[in-house]
C-alpha cells in the first residue's frame, strides 16, 4: 500500500485549522509523533501561545496490564489552559484511548473553554466515542499494521509497520 506524503497532509491539515485558530488558541501535541506534528503546525499557523506537549503515560488505561511505559516524559504546558480554546494534535487516531487519556490529564491543568482534535491520519478502529475535528486523511489498515510518523530535521514522513 502506498502511503500519502506527510508534508502534503500537513499543509492540508494546516489549511483546515487556519480559519479556526484565534490569538487565544493553544496547541498541545501528544508525545511523540503528535508533538513533532504540533511543532510544525505551531510554526505554519503562526500561533502566538507557546506550544504545549502531553505525555499520557501516567494516564493510560492499560497501566494495570502493561505497567508503566519505559520512556515516560514530563508533560509541559507553558500557558494557562483555563478559559482558553485548545487543539490537541496527534499523528494517528486509532482506538481513541490515547485521546481519552490526554483529555483526563488536560483537565488537571485547568478548565479550557473548548477542546478540539487535529490528526494527520484517522485509521478507524475506534473503541471510544471520539472523533477528530480536523483530519487530513483516512486510511484503511489491517489489524496488524501501523502507520508511524517520522521526522528528519522537522521534515515529516510516514512509514508502514507490520506487527
Amino acid at each position, binding site marked *: 500500500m502506498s502511503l500519502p506524503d506527510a508534508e502534503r497532509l500537513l499543509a492540508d491539515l494546516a489549511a483546515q485549522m487556519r480559519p479556526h485558530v484565534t490569538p487565544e488558541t493553544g496547541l498541545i501535541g501528544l508525545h511523540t509523533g503528535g508533538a513533532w506534528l504540533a511543532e510544525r503546525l505551531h510554526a505554519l499557523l503562526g500561533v502566538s501561545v507557546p506550544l504545549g506537549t502531553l*505525555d499520557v*503515560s*501516567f*494516564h493510560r488505561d492499560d*497501566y*494495570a*496490564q*502493561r*505497567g*508503566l511505559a*519505559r520512556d*515516560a*516524559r*514530563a*508533560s*509541559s504546558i507553558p500557558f494557562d489552559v*483555563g478559559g482558553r480554546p485548545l487543539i490537541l494534535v496527534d499523528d494517528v487516531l486509532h482506538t481513541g484511548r490515547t485521546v481519552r487519556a490526554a483529555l*483526563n490529564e488536560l*483537565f*488537571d*491543568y*485547568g478548565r479550557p473553554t473548548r477542546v478540539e482534535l487535529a490528526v494527520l491520519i484517522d485509521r478507524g478502529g475506534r473503541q471510544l466515542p471520539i472523533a477528530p475535528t480536523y483530519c487530513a486523511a483516512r486510511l484503511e489498515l489491517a489489524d496488524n499494521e501501523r502507520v508511524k510518523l517520522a521526522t528528519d530535521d522537522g521534515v515529516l514522513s510516514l512509514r508502514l509497520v507490520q506487527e
Partner: protein
Amino acid sequence: MARNPQLNKHGELQHLLTTEGLPRDVITRILDTAEPFTVVAEREVKKLPLLRGKSVFNLFFENSTRTRTTFEIAAKRLSADVINLNISTSSTNKGETLLDTVDNLAAMQADMFVVRHASSGAPYLIAQHLEATGRDHIHVINAGDGRHAHPTQGLLDVYTIRHYKRDFTQLSVAIVGDILHSRVARSQIHALTTLGVPDLRVIAPKTLLPGDLDRLGCRVFHDLKEGLRGVDVVMMLRLQNERMQGSLLPSPQEYFKFFGLTEEKLALAKPDAIVLHPGPMNRGVEIDSAVADGHQAVILPQVTFGIAVRMAVMAMLAGGNA
C-alpha cells in the same frame, strides 16, 4: 544462583528491599521514571491516577515522621488510599507477631506495604511470607530496616547527584559520618558503586566504621580534610545519638571539631561540590549552619526529589500485574 528477591521472573521490580544487587538498568529506570514526576507538583491538580483504588499501608514499627510523610505524599499524589499504622504504639504491644499483623492487613485488601522496622531483614521477611503464601500481588517497600538498608533514601540521593552532576563515571564522592549505624550509607554505597562511581570514599572515626568497607569498594579515611580533597559530592550522615551504645564518641563537641563539615573544610572539595544530608540535621554536630544554609547545600531539593523517587518506585511496582 538464587533469584533476586526484589525482581519477578521477568526481571521487573516486585519489591524494593535494598539497593544491593539491584541491576543498573533497574536503578536507572527508577531515576528516569522519577523525572517526569517532579513536575506534577506544579500543576493545578497535583495528582496522577496510577494508584487509584489501591491501598498503601505505611507500617512503621519505628517512628519516623518525615519518611512516613514523604511516602504518604507520594502515594497520595498517585491517588492511592493511604493508611498509616504506627505500630510502635499498637498491636505488637499486645503481643501480635509481625507476620500476623501482615496477614491481618492483607485480609483488608492491602496492595502495598511500606515498612520501617528496627530489625534488619523485617521487610524481606514480609516479602518472603507474601510470596510463600501466594500473595505476590502485594508489594513491599523497605522504608528503613535496622542497620541494613534504606533504599529509597539511597535512590533519592543518587537522583540528586545525577540532577546536578549528570555523569556518575567521572565523580569523586565522599560519605561522611556514622557509617557503622547507617543503613542510609549502605544503600548509598551500593547504588553509587552499581552506577559506576570510580572514587568512593568514606570518612569517619574508627569507632563509627564497620569492618567490611573494603569489600564494598570504598576508600577509607579517618581525617575529614584529607578525605574531602577534590571531591565532587559530599554526603553527610546524621550522627545517630539514639543508636549510640556505650561511648563510641567522647562528645558531640569533639565530634564537630574533627568531623563536622564547616565552610573551611568544604573549601578543600571542588569549588562546585554539592553537599547532601538525609535529615534531620544536627547543626553544630555533623554540619555547620553556614554549610547547611550555604549555596552548595542541596538538602532541600533532596526532600523534593525524594517524593518523585518514591512515586516512581510505587508506580513501577503497582503496574503490570494483571
